[in-house]
């Protein structure tokens, strides 16, 4: 066999990079099995190099890959079919294959909802979504979540097996299940975003970009008649507004707080899109936590943030998410409106719940210092520094601690 043409290699790589999610989604929707779809795509990719080399590249490589992978899947099933269910599936597939080739549907929304099914462990939902929709390799996902590659590989295999064996359907949920299931999907998207945010933009695959891509995809593919998009837009807006500040949020390895960031380094287009999305979402009159968080992020883009408005938004958010972290943020907003004593009282009440949470101690240190209590502030900074998740955060906190009066 001749060595494959590098140009064909390039075309194959490019097709897989751009369309892998769409191809895999189309295959899974027909063969009903994640692993089989991935294996079949692997087979099809190998034969693409041979066939394209012999008879030239097809005009639509992605359609070629889907068609050939589908046949490869049938071949694989024929070799392994041992139970009645698989034989029945094979009959259906063989019939489908014989039919005239229809336009390939975009099945990625179904795939997203399946990958984020609540019957899977949250971490597996994230991994499976990154693997199948965003097309990250197992190694890239393992790296992003600080796992060993074999461990992540096993997690993905377990998740795919569960999808198949537990009978998790490959469907977009109906209107009555939509809000709950969408929550699960958006939680995955936002977890991916946060992983990217924590890792920083220097990583080879910026997970923030992947998360934004996923939210756009959900907004674009959701049938508007049955699906409420307010929270999708809210989530996308929140991520855009946060991501727009990526160039400004670190300086020489030290975290720069929002108020001190160089605004000229913010991404104006992303900001504008985020703010417009908040308006679009609010116009749907279906408030939800992502919209409120986006509105808060929107307030922070102003040169002088309206802290009364932010405090009010956190009070609304606490109705959806009565978590200690939301109350912590409410306390911060209160302190910034000038209600320092009320804020410190609220912070004290959160101590048991947030003892191991670095931002809690950092906020408490800040407001103790403002209240003229440098001693307790120093102790709170010490706790925050021990708990800091990144060296950039620790460096910032150490800087603040050193600035305290003696």
């Amino acid at each position: 066999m001749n060595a494959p043409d590098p140009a064909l290699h390039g075309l194959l790589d490019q097709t897989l990079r751009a369309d892998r999610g769409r191809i895999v989604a189309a295959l899974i929707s027909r063969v009903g099995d994640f692993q089989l779809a991935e294996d079949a795509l692997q087979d099809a990719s190998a034969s693409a190099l041979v066939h394209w080399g012999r008879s030239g590249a097809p005009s639509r490589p992605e359609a070629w890959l889907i068609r050939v992978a589908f046949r490869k899947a049938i071949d694989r099933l024929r070799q392994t079919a041992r139970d009645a269910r698989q034989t029945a599936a094979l009959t259906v597939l063989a019939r489908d294959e014989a039919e005239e080739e229809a336009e390939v549907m975009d099945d990625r929304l179904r795939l997203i909802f399946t990958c984020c099914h609540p019957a899977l462990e949250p971490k597996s939902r994230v991994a499976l979504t990154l693997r199948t929709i965003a097309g990250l390799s197992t190694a890239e996902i393992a790296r992003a979540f600080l796992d060993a590659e074999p461990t992540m590989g096993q997690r993905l295999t377990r998740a795919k097996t569960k999808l198949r064996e537990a009978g998790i359907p490959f469907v977009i949920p109906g209107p009555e299940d939509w809000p709950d299931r969408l929550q699960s999907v958006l939680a995955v998207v936002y977890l991916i975003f946060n992983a990217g945010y924590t890792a920083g933009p220097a990583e080879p695959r910026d997970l923030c970009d992947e998360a934004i891509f996923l939210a756009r995809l959900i907004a674009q593919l959701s049938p508007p008649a049955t699906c409420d998009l307010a929270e999708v837009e809210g989530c996308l807006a929140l991520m855009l507004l946060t991501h727009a500040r990526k160039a400004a949020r670190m300086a020489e390895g030290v975290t720069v707080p929002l108020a001190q960031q160089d605004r000229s380094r913010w991404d104006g287009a992303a900001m504008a899109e985020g703010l417009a999305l908040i308006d679009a979402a609010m116009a749907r009159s279906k408030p939800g936590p992502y919209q409120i968080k986006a509105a808060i992020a929107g307030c922070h883009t102003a040169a002088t943030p309206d802290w009364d408005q932010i405090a009010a938004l956190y009070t609304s958010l606490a109705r959806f998410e009565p978590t200690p972290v939301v109350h912590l943020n409410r306390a911060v907003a209160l302190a910034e409106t000038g209600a320092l004593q009320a804020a410190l009282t609220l912070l004290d009440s959160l101590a048991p719940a947030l003892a191991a949470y670095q931002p809690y101690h950092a906020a408490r240190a800040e407001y103790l210092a403002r209240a003229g209590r440098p001693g307790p502030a120093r102790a709170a900074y010490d706790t925050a520094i021990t708990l800091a998740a990144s060296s950039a955060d620790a460096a910032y906190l150490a800087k603040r601690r050193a600035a305290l009066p003696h």
Partner: protein
Amino acid sequence: MQYLALIYSAPENEPKYGTPEFGAMMAGYNAFTAMLKETGAFVSGDGLKPVTTATSVRVKDGKVETMDGPFAETKEHLGGYYLMEVPDLDTAIKYAAQIPTAGYGTVELRPIMIW
């Protein structure tokens, strides 16, 4: 697909016999079973006598060993089951959530293996 819904709960969380809560639970089970039968999802289902009546059996070196009590000492005990015939896990979850014990215990769904 067939799913076995295994119904677990801790005895201290269960409604006591003779209380209105117990009556409501029994009525809930009757209504649920009737609904399952109506939709055609019902294959079988039973409640079990309390865990104090359990006997665990194993064979070691060809010798039958019996033990008084359940296989695993856990807070929540298996108290009953339904075998359901439904299209997929989403439907099974929808039904499982309507089993009265799901409100204070746990329902474990296990797909039945096909050989």
